[in-house]
């Protein structure tokens, strides 16, 4: 049996990792959302932040009242044309890296105001780039937490490293786009092996 090259060769309580992983781990565990409720979806967002669902379990409970300190903009509620320029301005005020969740049917695509609403923007992605869409009217807090975890996936795939190309230029390594998945635990039935080679012999 081959021994690991570097792992396990240090004294106890000594971890090694890459800078990229460490920074991504710190970032995804401390996403600070901006207090940004526009309509009824904000009630569900508040419920997500409150004790029953407790968004702080994922490090995203520190709702900031200013875009300067926020990483994540949860656009919760109907975006009107009057509000659209403000949404854009607030997004521009946020420091990089910044992420946007479009929460609710109105922000995803206009919702019930799509056809004849004279005052509603038909989707907040017409105003700011959206990372995760959370549909629902309004979405359950579990759905918003799911959206938050997808943002965390996106942060985990962020690449800080740069590489030198064959021509000598330094270029950024592209981010790993996360594969959409559902992280819920599914119990898989243990099956009896059919063939001899499927048996785990150790």
């Amino acid at each position, binding site marked *: 049996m081959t021994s690991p090259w570097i792992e396990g060769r240090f004294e106890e309580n000594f971890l090694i990792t890459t800078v990229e992983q460490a920074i991504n781990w710190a970032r995804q565990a401390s996403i600070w959302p901006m207090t940004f409720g526009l309509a009824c979806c904000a009630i569900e967002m508040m419920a997500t932040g409150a004790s029953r669902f407790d968004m702080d379990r994922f490090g995203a409970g520190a709702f900031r009242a200013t875009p300067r300190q926020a990483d994540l903009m949860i656009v919760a509620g109907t975006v009107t044309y*009057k509000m659209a320029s403000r949404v854009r301005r607030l997004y521009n005020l946020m420091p990089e890296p910044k992420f946007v969740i479009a929460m609710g049917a109105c922000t995803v695509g206009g919702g019930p105001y799509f056809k*004849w609403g*004279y*005052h509603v923007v038909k989707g907040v992605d*017409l105003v700011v780039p959206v990372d995760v869409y959370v549909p629902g009217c309004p979405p359950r807090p579990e759905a918003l937490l799911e959206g938050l975890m997808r943002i965390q996936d996106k942060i985990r795939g962020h690449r800080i490293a740069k590489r030198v190309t064959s021509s000598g230029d330094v270029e950024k390594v592209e981010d790993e786009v996360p594969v959409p998945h559902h992280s819920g635990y599914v119990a898989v039935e243990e099956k009896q092996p059919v063939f001899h080679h499927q048996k785990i012999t150790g």
Partner: protein
Amino acid sequence: MIRPETLDGLLRLFPQLEHSEFRGQTRVVVPRELLPSVWQTLRDEFGFDLLIDVTCVDYLHYRKARHRFGLVYLLAATATNERLTLRCYLDEPDLAVPSAVPYWPGANWLEREVWDMFGITFTGHPDLRRILLPEAFTAHPLRKDYPLQGRGERHNFPVLTRAQG
């Protein structure tokens, strides 16, 4: 609720005002010319120091209605716990009303909203701009003759594309 002596005192000063009562709530119909003097009297002599709301009703297609718009002022006297509703009827060509901002500064945004939604101009208002709808909007959408499908305003806004986002 309003005390009888308040209503009697008001009607003694302005005998031409109509008033009615419904479930303990008193409504006084004030002609447009009398509005500033009635406000002044109610605020200074009867203690109506709080303007709760300014709103409007469009009586288009309303049965037995004789006027197009009914402007509504909800007043309250915080010391005596009295409430009074003022109603001022307006008709289409001339929709200008004196502003209540000199009497209650809180009327500022309320009148802006009525202007935004019903298109009633308040003369003497310090800053009569649209408050809820975008500046480029041209219509007054809470009027009953505003079509449910809009007048094409939604097509007139600058088109935002996903590439600009």
